[in-house]
């Protein structure tokens, strides 16, 4: 039986893909059986798809749930009374959001995994942390949005956590300068959502005559590039822009989602996203879901060994990307690396029932 503790203290990027696959085959078998026994909807789907959990399978062969199913269904693999946190994806009003149910154990695994992954990039010591967001975001603690959960999760890795934006999302220069004064000559962690950093931090600084000296800052940001692409900003220009306004040159993007909180994919110094010991990525062709070759674009399937209280260990996302390499990143971290192109494009369906469409 696979135990999370087996991997909890391994260095998160220390396993070569071949060794990792052996571990993941075992772990995925056990996780799949775990959810089959506990989640009726999951069982109906997996059986309907014709998957036989009793025979042995490679990592590629395990079933995956479409990410949208977490929006239409409340999927739990434990008793509701065990749930300590319900996380929701960030969606605009009216959109359906994913609901992810966490029990104490799964929540603890997420915290642990996130700390292990981040410390590989930040070192073991807690750093003074500047959150490029507003503390107002965390006022409602009963429901955790993806943004709030990300901030809370990363806040555990920092100290003297200071929010850079006020309730109106304006940059609070005084608070930031005080913070910088308190931590002269120290490494500083800057954390935020990509678009928030761009819109409310970078743009304000770019327009302002004031300059913030954060040469010793390490920036970690995530949450998607959709709005940034409209402004033709990519990872490289984002880095350059940040360096120009505050001097921070170490910038790491991460790829993650509320459906698999904790086991995030961090971008290394070489600009590649890395799977850790807690996670893996398979890219699939949309015509038949067969695995794509390295370098070939397809739909991203994410695997995480953390989810116990909900059947989210294997999810087919609506993002596209491609595998960029295996065990070969110049940064030295082992395992698969990949890149994300973005959300799959919307397309109109033909048909005859929408004349008086809603606005």
């Amino acid at each position, binding site marked *: 039986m696979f135990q999370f503790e087996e991997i909890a203290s391994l260095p998160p990027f220390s396993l070569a893909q071949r060794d990792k696959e052996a571990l993941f085959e075992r772990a995925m078998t056990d996780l799949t059986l775990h959810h089959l026994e506990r989640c009726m*909807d999951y069982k*109906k*789907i997996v059986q*309907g*798809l*014709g998957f036989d959990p009793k025979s042995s399978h490679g990592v590629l062969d395990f079933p995956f*749930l*479409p990410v*949208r*199913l977490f929006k*239409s*269904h409340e999927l739990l693999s434990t008793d509701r009374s065990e749930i300590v946190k319900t996380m929701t994806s960030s969606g605009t009003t009216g959109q359906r959001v994913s609901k992810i149910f966490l029990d104490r154990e799964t929540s603890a695994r997420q915290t642990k995994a996130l700390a292990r992954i981040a410390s590989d990039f930040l070192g073991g010591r807690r750093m003074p942390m500047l959150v490029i967001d507003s503390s107002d975001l965390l006022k409602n603690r009963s429901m955790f949005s993806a943004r709030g959960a990300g901030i809370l999760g990363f806040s555990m890795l920092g100290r003297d956590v200071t929010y850079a934006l006020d309730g109106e999302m304006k940059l609070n220069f005084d608070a930031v300068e005080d913070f910088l004064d308190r931590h002269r000559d120290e490494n500083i962690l800057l954390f935020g959502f990509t678009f928030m950093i761009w819109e409310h931090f970078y743009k304000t600084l770019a327009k302002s005559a004031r300059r913030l000296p954060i040469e010793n800052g390490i920036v970690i940001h995530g949450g998607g590039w959709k709005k940034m692409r409209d402004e033709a900003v990519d990872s490289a220009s984002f880095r350059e822009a940040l360096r120009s306004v505050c001097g921070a040159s170490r910038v790491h993007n991460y790829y993650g989602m509320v459906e698999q909180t904790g086991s995030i994919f961090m971008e290394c110094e070489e600009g590649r996203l890395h799977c850790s010991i807690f996670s893996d990525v398979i890219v699939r062709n*949309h*015509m*038949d*879901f067969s695995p794509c070759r390295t370098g070939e674009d397809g*739909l991203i399937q994410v695997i995480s060994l953390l989810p116990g209280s909900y059947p989210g260990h294997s999810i*087919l996302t*609506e993002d*596209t990307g491609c595998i960029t390499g295996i065990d070969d990143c110049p940064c030295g971290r082992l395992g698969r690396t990949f890149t994300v192109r973005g959300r*799959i*494009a*919307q*397309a*109109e*369906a*033909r*048909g*005859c*029932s*929408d*004349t*008086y*469409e*809603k*606005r």
Partner: protein
Amino acid sequence: MKKDNLFYLVGEGVPNRRPTRPYSDTACSFLAAMSELLLTHREFPDVVSFAFFCRRANITRLKAEFGSSEVRLGRGLAFHITPSNIPINFAFSLVYGMLSGNSNVVRVPTKLWPQVDIVCGAINSLLERPEFSELDGGIAMVRYERDDEVTRHFSERCDARVVWGGDETVRAIRCIPIPPRAIEISFADRYSFCVIDEDAIMKLSDAAIARVADGFYNDTYLVDQNACSSPSLIVWLGGARRSPEGRERFWRSVEQSARKYDLAPIHAMDKYSMLCDFLTQDLGVESVARHGNLIYRLKLASLNDVENLRGKFGVFFEYEADDIGEIAPHVTSKWQTLTYFGVEKDTLARFVTDNSLTGIDRMVPIGSALDIGVVWDGYDIIRTLSRVVWI
């Protein structure tokens, strides 16, 4: 009516020509001339098939079938609200309005289909010809985003309203009144299915099965399986010697035909999500067969509530029946088109009449599900849009 968001692609204001007899010479000639103009647009198969419908020989045939035993006139002004997702449907609606002798105002799709510009361009150029001067002022083609005020404006002035686009649209439009004497034809959401004799499939040559499969492709994939007349359910008639060989042969052939289908990644995700969603419901799915992501097949053990199970992008439900009569208890007024292969027409006609079914308005061979005609959804449209002068 002048509004910033109301665009006239043809005409201006409310058309106000006097009604004519159905199939008037001018209307027939106009359609024949339009057919000639549009047949050149090979790049749009739907425009070509519309042009083919409008050609003189076809209209003359329809006119002869219509007969002249009674005196009829158009009702006056027909107001058409047409679907956004089928680019050419608005043009057929206009043709029905013209052939029945009405002036017409047609709300075209808000989506900017090139087909709309092509057809409206042809209409404009024809209206400039002297031989069609009496039609000038009798046609308005309008484009506007959903706006009850504009819809009300035309509704208050019409003698017939033609509403395409499903239950929600029909419900929304019904809230906007039409004059007491006016009539309405509404095309609500419908459910369609297909009946195939498995033995008949086994008897086909390879070339013949490929033609059936191509026909099935045109009924379904060509419109993302999202038209009312696209089948969601396939009923396999097996008789005593039931074996699934026939259906496997059929699906392999459909898979070949569907190779050309451009399944967008988002639609692959829609489809997979739909499959998983269906599996979580207790529908009595006996087995699932997948041909890559092109074809998903869910075999049903019972037909209870089957009309609520709508496939899209190539998701089909299958059911085995010894006799077509087994379907009868499940047919409601929502059922529209039955496409068939290997079954006698007489058997089908008896199935509907002997069982006193409230649904099924059309029975056509596989391949003709989308062939729209002057009889649709159980309406004889030309007669409905005209009035009888009793003498």
